[in-house]
């Protein structure tokens, strides 16, 4: 088996995949903008880790989104779940009074529960995943906004090191992001569960005939995606010092996580794709963000451009599809 893998990986030819081109192009664009606007300092170690830190929140969410999309589902509830977990993190911690371990476990538990509900709705009740997760997202946001209308509580001092601390020269947030990414890549490429995800997303009926418990696979993917959205909520609470009920929605994590997954070459209909492409898409968005800041684009114009770029980027992949797109 290892021989086959080796011959297919073509170690001598340097031919980047589309995702590779996106990553390369983004990096070059970042360098050009930094030099052209006279901000060469952006190319220092601090500048580059700063750019990479812009990837963390969207990146962690997008890893989860990649998993559910490969499994043939989708998750529109992530933005609202991020708000819920960010608010609950700081609300549970109440400064230093409750430590941070129990609140973190509680928040992740709630996130996993939301994922379980999403998964059950999609896999058992056969609710269209767009509608099911839109619905759970609305319920989460409604309950959250009814209970909280502003920043709630504060995170523990020690917990802020999740966003601001470093180990040696490396920010802890980046290390976490890198670990989660590698973990997801490993799961997709080297585990039976990963193979099942692709099988279920590619041909659900076929996978079932092959003896795969398709419901279980879809539910697990949803739990994983919600857990990762929960981690993003923890990270945002740590960075802001406190969670507010609009942090997820205003970050557009639902739309953007789907957009970067598609930009990375993962099929929206499931069955094909991977984490590498998604990470390239996330880098592209981080560069756009940083680039707009360096050039000093008006924030409203930035929103217009983002909307246009999301659609254009998805179109660049999708326009060749023959199938009817809903």
């Amino acid at each position, binding site marked *: 088996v290892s021989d086959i893998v080796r011959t297919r990986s073509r170690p001598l030819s340097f031919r980047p995949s589309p995702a590779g081109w996106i990553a390369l192009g983004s990096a070059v664009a970042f360098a050009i903008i930094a030099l052209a606007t006279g901000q060469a300092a952006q190319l220092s170690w601090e500048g580059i880790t700063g750019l990479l830190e812009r990837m963390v929140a969207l990146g962690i969410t997008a890893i989860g989104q990649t998993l559910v999309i490969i499994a043939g589902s989708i998750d529109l509830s992530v933005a609202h779940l991020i708000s819920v977990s960010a608010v609950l993190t700081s609300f549970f911690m109440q400064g230093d009074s409750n430590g941070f371990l129990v609140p973190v476990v509680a928040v992740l538990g709630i996130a996993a529960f939301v994922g379980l509900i999403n998964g059950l709705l999609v896999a058992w009740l056969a609710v269209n995943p767009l509608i099911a997760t839109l619905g759970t997202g609305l319920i989460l946001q409604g309950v959250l906004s009814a209970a909280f209308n502003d920043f709630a509580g504060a995170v523990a001092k020690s917990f802020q090191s999740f966003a601001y601390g470093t180990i040696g020269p490396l920010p802890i947030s980046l290390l976490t992001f890198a670990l989660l990414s590698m973990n997801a890549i490993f799961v997709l490429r080297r585990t039976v569960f990963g193979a099942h995800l692709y099988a279920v997303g590619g041909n659900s009926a076929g996978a079932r005939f092959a003896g795969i418990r398709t419901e279980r696979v879809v539910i697990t993917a949803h739990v994983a995606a919600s857990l990762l959205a929960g981690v993003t909520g923890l990270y945002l609470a740590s960075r802001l010092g406190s969670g507010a009920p609009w942090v997820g929605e205003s970050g557009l994590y639902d739309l953007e996580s789907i957009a970067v997954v598609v930009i990375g070459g993962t099929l929206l209909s499931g069955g094909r794709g991977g984490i590498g492409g998604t990470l390239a898409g996330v880098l592209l968005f981080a560069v756009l963000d940083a680039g707009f800041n360096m050039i000093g684009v008006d924030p409203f114009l930035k929103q217009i451009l983002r909307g*246009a770029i999301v*659609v254009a980027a998805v179109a660049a992949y999708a*326009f060749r599809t023959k199938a009817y797109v809903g």
Partner: protein
Amino acid sequence: MSAVDLKSGAGGLAGMRVRLRIAPVYLVLLALCAAITWYNPSFIEPAGLMNFLRRAAPLAILTCGQLFVLATGGFDLSVGSLITFTVIAASLLTLGDALLTWPAITFLYGVGLTVGLVNGLVVHRLKVPSIITTLGMLLMLKGAALAWSGGSPRGYLPENFRAFGRLVWRDIPVIDTLPLAVIVLVIFVAISWWLLHSTQFGKLALAIGDNARAAELSGVLVGRVRVAAFVISAISAVTAGILIGGYSGVSVDAGNGMDLQAIAAAVIGGVRLLGGRGSVPGAVAGALSLYALFTLLNFLGLPQPVRLAVQGAILIVAAAIAGRQRREA
């Protein structure tokens, strides 16, 4: 689900089980109206009902527009921000000058036409899923409205512009009062009804939603029908925006979340998500039910955000029921 539906059972009992069935949405609407009357008896008087219709008109119009996109198997999430854009643009264009009302309205319908065309063409030609296309459009319209107004919209609308949402004729026989918004509503619903249920276009829209491939193979110009559906939806949003500008004035929040309300209303009205089934009377009854539900939640003193949660629950339950029906079929 049509208003009256002949349902025949399977097997040997088929003949026995043919019966008339009323779509559940009408019963839901009746029950909600009864509940509101319990709290507020003046609701059932002509003036109370007319006022309710006036307030519900934008949502009902929006739901009719959304129905066309839903029927062809898509979603239009950009209508809420198109309403925001309409309200803000109207105040910036007229600057309170009554003479500029009609030019502004013409311009706004031009914008609506363009937005619908772009949505439809991007979905059909570039094959971008409608959820992503219209979310992108949502960002662009909201950004454009904010950029144009500098982030904090000021100004006010001229009185003759606000009349569409506010003007009420009094002392009319039988119905007592007659708001202009209700006339707009009736006209929009009548046109939608005719388009969906009496024209070739309407039948094709439903056929595409049912099975796009089959429709295409039998010679339907799928692209034109789909683009037209998005245009109708955008036009409905501009119309709703003009009414909303009339009674709630200029704000960045006008129209917020109304896209999902329209989808939820359509689902309550028996419209099948991902296409193929839906009716204008059902959609209107769904919109009125949802608005009646909001009114009732208000009477019960529940906070505004609970509306969101209720909508979410409605969407899930309706989609679960539809999913089950589809599997049984």
